[in-house]
């Protein structure tokens, strides 16, 4: 086991190297830029055996990854904010074609007005593109999750987006333990290809389909996306058996066993929220934390299993669900628990927009003020 002490962006590059990726196409955008710089440097020096394609924009980056996957290559890209939005139509193509791509999205708020700092409005606005979405709260988890993402994508044949908060994770240095390469190779054994382009046996792919064929493909994608939860759980548990690391599977929980009050959140806020739980526990509030690790597929059953009847749930959203009652995670959680709605109280607090600071005190305050808890 090798120890790495580096920034989030460089940890991403190391994980991509360990994953034995064949082709990277990417375009730099703050705060993802040093992912691209580091991968370019590693491929240039020969330290990383991979083709690096410096494309002219994110639309092309995703198109190049789709093309690489079409000949059976393990491909990767990274982006952020406007770059992710610029990829939008090709994201649909990647999932509809069932290509097992992995992308790191360094979460950054969206234009307008211009901003560079973290929130989740970029990735959450891509929630219906058919990509699986995983969210990380530490650099160790980022490293582990990139490897797990390839395990998942190559089995369910659906692309996976790994999300990490801009600057908070991308530019922060943390110690990351890298499992030995032989263990990673064992974890990430190449899977049989689905369809790939082959000049010896020519075929056309994803051609025009009428109302007789199109619905079947979309229904299959819908079902496979939903059922990907089993493979996400499997990936986490196989990875734990091989490396000893555990970041949760669909969700991760902290002090939930006897809790009646819960904080639910995603991304780096889930790391800080542990301190809020400890603080509230000291003050006598039986609080637990649920970190949503897989936003797509949404872990409705796993969440419901943790929440007892009568639970009070505070959803902390780092985004605005424009035109809805609050944040996007809040809406999703409420919808997924609708049949139990009479028995569970769900409140919402939006914080951390555009990189504004979030600390454990603020999260604890959100809980106590929502239910008028005296401290």
């Amino acid at each position, binding site marked *: 086991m090798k120890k790495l002490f580096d920034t989030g962006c460089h940890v991403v590059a190391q994980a991509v190297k360990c994953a034995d990726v064949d082709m990277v196409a990417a375009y730099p955008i703050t705060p993802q830029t040093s992912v691209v710089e580091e991968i370019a440097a590693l491929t240039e020096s020969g330290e990383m055996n991979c083709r690096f394609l410096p494309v002219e924009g994110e639309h092309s980056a995703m198109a190049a990854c789709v093309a690489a996957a079409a000949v059976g290559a393990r491909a990767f890209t990274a982006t952020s904010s406007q770059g992710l939005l610029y990829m939008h139509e090709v994201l649909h193509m990647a999932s509809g074609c069932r290509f097992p791509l992995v992308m790191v999205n360094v979460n950054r708020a969206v234009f307008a007005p211009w901003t560079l700092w973290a929130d989740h409005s970029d990735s959450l606005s891509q929630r219906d593109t058919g990509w699986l979405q995983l969210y990380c709260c530490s650099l160790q988890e980022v490293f582990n999750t990139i490897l797990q993402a390839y395990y998942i994508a190559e089995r369910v044949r659906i692309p996976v987006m790994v999300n990490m908060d801009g600057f908070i994770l991308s530019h922060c240095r943390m110690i990351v333990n890298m499992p030995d390469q032989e263990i990673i190779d064992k974890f990430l054994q190449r899977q049989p290809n*689905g369809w790939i382009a082959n000049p010896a*046996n020519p*075929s*056309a*792919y994803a051609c025009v389909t009428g109302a007789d064929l199109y619905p079947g*493909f979309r229904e299959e*994608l819908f079902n496979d996306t939903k059922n990907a939860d089993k493979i996400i759980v499997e990936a986490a548990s196989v990875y734990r058996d091989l490396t000893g690391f555990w970041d949760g599977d669909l969700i991760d929980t902290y002090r939930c066993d006897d809790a009646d009050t819960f904080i639910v959140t995603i991304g780096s806020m889930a790391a800080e929220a542990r301190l809020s739980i400890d603080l509230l526990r000291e003050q006598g509030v039986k609080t637990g934390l649920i970190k949503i690790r897989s936003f797509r597929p949404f872990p409705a059953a796993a969440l419901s299993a943790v929440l007892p009847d009568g639970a009070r749930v505070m959803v902390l959203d780092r985004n605005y669900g424009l035109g809805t009652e609050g944040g996007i995670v809040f809406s999703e959680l409420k919808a997924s628990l609708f049949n139990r709605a009479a028995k569970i109280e769900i409140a919402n607090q939006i914080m951390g927009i555009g990189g504004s600071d979030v600390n454990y005190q603020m999260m604890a305050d959100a809980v106590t003020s929502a239910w008028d808890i005296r401290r």
Partner: protein
Amino acid sequence: MEQRNDFPSKYPVSYPVIGAGGDTGSWRMFRPEIDKDKCIKCLFCWIYCPDGVIDRDNLQINYDFCKGCGICAKECPRNAINMIREE
């Protein structure tokens, strides 16, 4: 690289077969006819034909699929191909 033909339904793949596009010869307004006396067998018509309906060996045109686009007649260096209006 491994190649599969037994794809599950999740992959929208299709393989080329003759006549997959239907009876495209019926679209034709003008039919190309090769004047064998003028023809020097340069194979320009064969290589330019966008539908691959000209046989390389005997220069027979498959009128079931020839759409009558006239590219062969345009490219022929000896003007050996006449476009004749279909009745």
